[in-house]
């Protein structure tokens, strides 16, 4: 029997899925007839996927059945929320944005054109648009170093989150 797969889900306030508006129960298995990426099934993040899907609440989710790995998510036919990651809150989200700002300033603060991203990220942080701050930091990296640099910056963000949230690699 395969070991359970632990992954993560960002949800809106009240355990509501951001795209389907499904309100997740806590601790109960949710089953779907099939797992098809972006169509059906329980969708969740690996640690490396976290920066792409930031939301209000972060939950640990246990997946069961055949787990399909997609580009920036995993999908399974069954899943249940096992615990809320309480450490992900507005305060830590702001710390994340602050870290993005420091990192981007250090790398590109004196680089023509790219230095503009520093001001953008400061503004996104000030207006609580943390996902956009993460995207802007990755875009700055991409403009400097190409698509691979975008992915590397996103991975760096994922490691920051995993470290601060004490999440395991799955």
């Amino acid at each position, binding site marked *: 029997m395969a070991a359970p797969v632990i992954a993560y889900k960002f949800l809106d306030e009240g355990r509501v899925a*951001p*795209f389907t508006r499904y309100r997740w129960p806590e601790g109960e298995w949710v089953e779907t007839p099939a797992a098809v990426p*972006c*169509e059906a099934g329980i969708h969740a993040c690996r640690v490396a996927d976290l920066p792409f899907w*930031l939301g209000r609440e972060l939950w640990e989710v246990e997946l069961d059945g055949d787990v399909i790995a997609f580009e920036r998510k995993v999908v399974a036919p069954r899943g249940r929320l096992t615990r809320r990651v309480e450490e992900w809150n507005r305060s830590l989200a702001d710390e994340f944005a602050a870290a993005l700002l420091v990192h981007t300033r250090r790398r590109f603060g004196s680089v023509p054109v790219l230095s503009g991203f520093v001001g953008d990220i400061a503004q996104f942080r000030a207006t609580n648009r943390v*996902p956009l701050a993460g995207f802007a930091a990755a875009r700055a990296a991409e403009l400097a170093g190409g698509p691979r640099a975008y992915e590397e910056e996103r991975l760096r963000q994922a490691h920051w989150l995993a470290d601060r949230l004490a999440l395991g690699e799955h």
Partner: protein
Amino acid sequence: MRLDRELTCAQLVEVITDYLEGALAPVDVERVEEHLVFCDGCTTYLEQMRATVAMAGRLRAEDIPPELQERLLGTFREWRRL
């Protein structure tokens, strides 16, 4: 269709109907939703489109007064000539 890895807002607007109708390939759905995570403007646009579809879906042809039907058809005919 395979959308760019990073969608612009203009590209998202072009595919929003396909997204709502479930007509996009999974990889493109992922790109749309990835964009929606950080783009408040497109999220608002999506919500407006959903509301429009819900309201328009309740309309029957007989709910529209004949004179309004004529005006709408005239507008659409003119539109096609542009």
